[in-house]
């Protein structure tokens, strides 16, 4: 049982303690007075970690590969930005609205789209991101391609970096906790069954249509929240970035790269790929950087289809198993005496 839980869902109980420790340590980082560069870089990692984690609920657990999550990210960002721009509402009000709108949108598009399986679903979601981009570009109140300028926080640059750093860390923690909780509840079992064989899941009483929709909405809600925080952080919104297909693809790749079967996989993927990407873009000429980045992705996905974390997972059970066997052998010897 232990081994089963370990393989498909992640490390057992002590993981929560480690997680809380890491979060507290990260939350204390600004006390050491790092520069704005490091804070900004960590903010980006946290953001991608939260996005990849949100994506994983539908893309990883349920196996419905969405390539259009930028639609929810952008929707959250624009909802927040427009509410701030036109009404000046507090973030405590606009952020939940951003998430709720993204979830509502997911319900509307998910109802027909989630009937499609495999590549057909992926293609439709890809178009979704593009459609949202065109829409934002042409709606009268979004200021189209010139983008939206938002008021800054009335604090100095460094303090504002620290504030957004802490907020995104909090959001990442929430997303990761949700992701972990799903694997420990009925919902996780149902989503895994859908990923493995949707028809067989149906014969066992799983209402796949409803469960997929719930997962899609939850995923969109969290993605919309991240988008909302991003628009406050950036204070300038441009449809070509927040609805970019590259965002949709990047977060999907991060989750797949890290490992979509365990709750910490997308996080590992986001951290590793963000760091690799940052190192390559600062150290190597852009063309070389792209080639190396692409090659790395291909190698990992070819040789580790269950992601980077499968290396750890393969080692760990073998080790645990060996210990258990030794113990059993010892008991037998004692028993024979």
């Amino acid at each position, binding site marked *: *049982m232990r*081994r*089963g839980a370990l*393989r*498909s869902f992640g490390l057992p109980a002590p993981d929560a303690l480690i997680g809380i420790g890491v979060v507290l340590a990260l939350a204390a980082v600004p006390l050491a007075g790092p520069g704005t560069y490091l804070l900004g870089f960590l903010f980006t990692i946290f953001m991608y970690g939260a996005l990849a984690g949100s994506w994983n609920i539908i893309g990883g657990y349920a196996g419905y590969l969405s390539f259009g999550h930028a639609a929810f990210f952008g929707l959250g960002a624009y909802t927040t930005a427009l509410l701030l721009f036109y009404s000046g509402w507090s973030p405590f009000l606009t952020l939940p609205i951003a998430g709720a709108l993204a979830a509502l949108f997911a319900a509307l598009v998910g109802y027909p789209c989630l009937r499609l399986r495999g590549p057909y679903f992926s293609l439709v979601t890809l178009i979704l991101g593009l459609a949202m981009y065109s829409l934002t570009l042409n709606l009268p109140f979004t200021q189209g391609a010139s983008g939206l300028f938002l008021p800054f926080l009335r604090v100095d640059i460094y303090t504002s970096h620290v504030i957004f750093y802490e907020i995104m860390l909090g959001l990442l923690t929430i997303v990761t906790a949700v992701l972990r909780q799903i694997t*420990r*509840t*009925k919902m996780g*079992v*149902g989503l*895994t*069954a859908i990923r*493995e*064989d949707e*028809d*067989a*899941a*149906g*014969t*066992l*009483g*799983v*209402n*796949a249509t409803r469960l997929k929709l719930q997962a899609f909405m939850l995923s969109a809600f969290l993605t919309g929240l991240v988008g909302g925080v991003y628009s406050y952080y950036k204070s300038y919104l441009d449809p070509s970035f927040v609805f970019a297909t590259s965002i949709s693809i990047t977060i999907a790749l991060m989750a797949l790269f890290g490992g979509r*079967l365990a709750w910490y996989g997308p996080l590992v993927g986001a951290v590793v790929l963000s760091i690799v990407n940052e190192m390559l873009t600062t150290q190597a000429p852009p063309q070389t950087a792209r080639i190396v980045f692409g090659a790395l992705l291909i190698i990992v996905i070819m040789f580790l289809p269950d992601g980077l974390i499968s290396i750890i997972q393969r080692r760990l059970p073998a080790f645990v198993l060996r210990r258990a066997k030794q113990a059993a052998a010892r008991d037998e010897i004692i028993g024979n005496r």
Partner: protein
Amino acid sequence: MLRGVGITKRFGGVTALRNVSFEVGAGELVGLIGPNGSGKSTLFGVISGFHPPDDGTVFFDGRHITGARPHTVAQLGIARTFQIVRPFTGMTVVENVRVGALYGRGERRIAVADRHARELVEFVGLEQRADTLARNLTLAEKKRLEIARALSIQPRVLLLDEVFAGLNPTEVRGAIDLIARIRSQFGVTIIMVEHVLKALMETCERIIVLSYGEKIAEGAPSAIAADPHVISVYLGKTYAAR
């Protein structure tokens, strides 16, 4: 308990089932036979909600279940196995069975579902393999898993699609034993599609024969074995005349 009236199912231009009616009483064990392509699996598909029929009705406990979706049919208490086994290959044996224990019975707590799952895994004789990934099982073990999974929804009717196919004689013997134990322990009604006729003749009280989508005979195994129409369908007209 389970009744079908005038069921017709067409796939494009092919009529897979034509005006088939049947009735199965509580606790019965009924065999469903017929040459390849005679509509046996389609009939299972119609009952379990995979293939809504073009015409006709299915009643379960007097309740109209025609066209209900598979998960609804499962929650009502009709379980099926697949002719080609379809375990969740990336899950362990217990995790496979847990799915039905949670969703088929409406259980919420994973720990309780796991307990049910382990009992069933032991019942079908897979306790040694409980924590093995389903993809690493032998065919005979996969068939046992398929049965444990079907039982996990606490079914009142069990539709078994060729559980003996591909098994060696010892394994067939084991599977026959298992079916007998399922009946005595759970009192569940069973309809089984089978090509291993000898096994069927031994276990079933009644047999329904399909050919080209139509019901051509129904009755006790001995009567079916002597029915000239059935013999001609299986072996050709020459044998039926003898």
